[in-house]
Structure formats: structure tokens, C-alpha cells
């Protein structure tokens, strides 16, 4: 895993982080996968991911609509775009 870059995360790093929090094989973390329905994330895992992306990678735009966002519709690909990540 490469060193975190401020304000963005590379695709491969994002996939590894999502897999680690969800205790999943990284192969399952594909752009079209939904965090909750496909990867089995619960609200604790979502909270961990937000803290990680905000604190470690300094992605400050992500929590903007935290209260109103429907996390059941969020896919890995959407997160990648919001986090300024590279291509898959």
C-alpha cells in the first residue's frame, strides 16, 4: 500500500481499506458493489470507513451529507469518485 496522499486515495488503496474493514477478500471490492447490500457493511463499518478516509487520507468532502445520505445506495465506485481515486 502506498503512502496516503492528502485529499485523495488511489483505487487500489481504497479497495484494500474497504476489504480490511469489511473482512472481505479484496477481489470482492469492485466498483459496482454496494457497500451494504453486496459487501455486508453495517453502520459500524461505514463509520470506520468514514473516519479512515477523513483522518488518514484527509478527504474532507466525504462527510458533507453524512446525516441524510442513504448509505444502502452507495457503491464502491461512487466512493472512489468522491475520494478522487485513480482508475480501477
Amino acid at each position, binding site marked *: 500500500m502506498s503512502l496516503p496522499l492528502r485529499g485523495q486515495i488511489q483505487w487500489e488503496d481504497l479497495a484494500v481499506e474497504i476489504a480490511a474493514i469489511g473482512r472481505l477478500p479484496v477481489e470482492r471490492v469492485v466498483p459496482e458493489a454496494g457497500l451494504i447490500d453486496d459487501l455486508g457493511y*453495517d*453502520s459500524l463499518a461505514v463509520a470506520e470507513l468514514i473516519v479512515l478516509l477523513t483522518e488518514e487520507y484527509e478527504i474532507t468532502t466525504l*462527510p458533507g451529507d453524512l446525516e441524510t445520505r442513504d448509505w444502502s445506495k452507495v457503491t464502491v465506485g461512487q466512493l472512489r469518485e468522491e475520494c478522487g481515486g485513480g482508475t480501477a
Partner: protein
Amino acid sequence: MTETTTPPAFVPQPARIPADQLVSDVGIAERAAEFRAAPLRGPYATLRVIQPEDYPFLRTLETSSEVATRWRLRGTTPGPEQWVQSLWNGVMVQFVVAETKTEKPIGLVALYAPNFQEGHARLGAGRFDLHSRNPVMIFGVAMFLEYVFHGWNLRKLYMDLPEYNYPQFSSGLGRFFDIEGRLREHTFASGRYWDELTLAIYRDRWQSEGARLLGTEASKFGAAANATVGGAA
């Protein structure tokens, strides 16, 4: 005949601390500067005390929705006075969790049945929207755990719940909590028996692993400096 001996009389020893230090205030100012209050208000979640004005809303919620069968009342509908008593029965500290931005109440957290001799207590936490996967409630619970471990010398907290409530935060197993008890087919609900689980949250693990959930809540946004009981209320 056995000869008995009288134990030597206890002779108090003089204090070994020099007398000039016993009455001095050396170091007190430095130690006092280390005092900090645990935050009750973060960028997403706020913990505020329950006011009597909250009672109608809370009672309606606890007795008339899906919450009624999943929470402590398990579908029963106690009268108003009895309900208030049950809300505070054995409770040491209890807060409404609210969204900081909207002040909308989203859940309850409580510490009850403390045992300071053994260093444990029981934790209750429930969100009002049972189907939500919004992480704001998690930030509220994390702030509450910090508040508890910061304020009382408890070494572990137990959380009792029927297994049908477990999937809401099962990802924390082994990282934030362990399952230390399981009563088989203990609880009857939704037409069948369910196991009752006892989760344990340890102080040391919380401080090494769980407290990072507070990163956004407390450290980065300086929530501690703005902490007030009652928060946004």
C-alpha cells in the same frame, strides 16, 4: 499443649514523605492543567440529557413502532408513570443521541447497573430508525463510551441483546467487543425463541482500537473545547 505466641503489636510507622511536601502544592497546577472533559458534542452527533419534554416522544416511539418489540419493553405498553420509572430504573447516566446539524434525535444511550467493586457496568444503546445504516448513531455511541471510560474507573462494559439486533454492528466483533455470553433460546419474539448475547467492551481495547472512531468527532474538529451538557438543545 501447644505454646501460643502473641503477635507483635502494630506500630504505626511515620510517614516517609518529607513534611514540607505534605503541605506543598508543587505539581498541582501542572496536573490540574491535564484535566479535560469528555466531549458531548461532535460534528455529527451530540449527546444531550433527557428532558421531561422528551418523554411523550420517547414513550410513543418505544411503545408504538418496531422499536417496541426490539427494545427493552419487548412490546409491552406500561402506563406513563411506570414508563418513566422504567426509563431511569438502575440508570447511572443516559443521553439522547441527536444529529448535531439538525438536532434530530436518533437514539438513546445508557449506562446502568454499575458495579464498582468488580469494575463493570451494562451498556444500552438503540437507534430509533432500526433500518438505518447511517453512521451518526455509531459516532454517538463512541462518544458515550469515551465519556464513560473517561469519567469512571470501569474496566469493562456488558451489552445484552437478542441475536436479532446483533447484525447492526456485528463487524466490530473481535475489534471493539467480544461475545462473552450466549443464552440459548432465551428470548421469545416474532413467533420464535432467540439467543440472548452478552457482548463485552474492554477499556483497554476501546482505548487502543475503538477510540479511533472519535477521530473525527473529537480531535480534528476541537469538539472538546465546545463540549456542553445539553449540546445543541
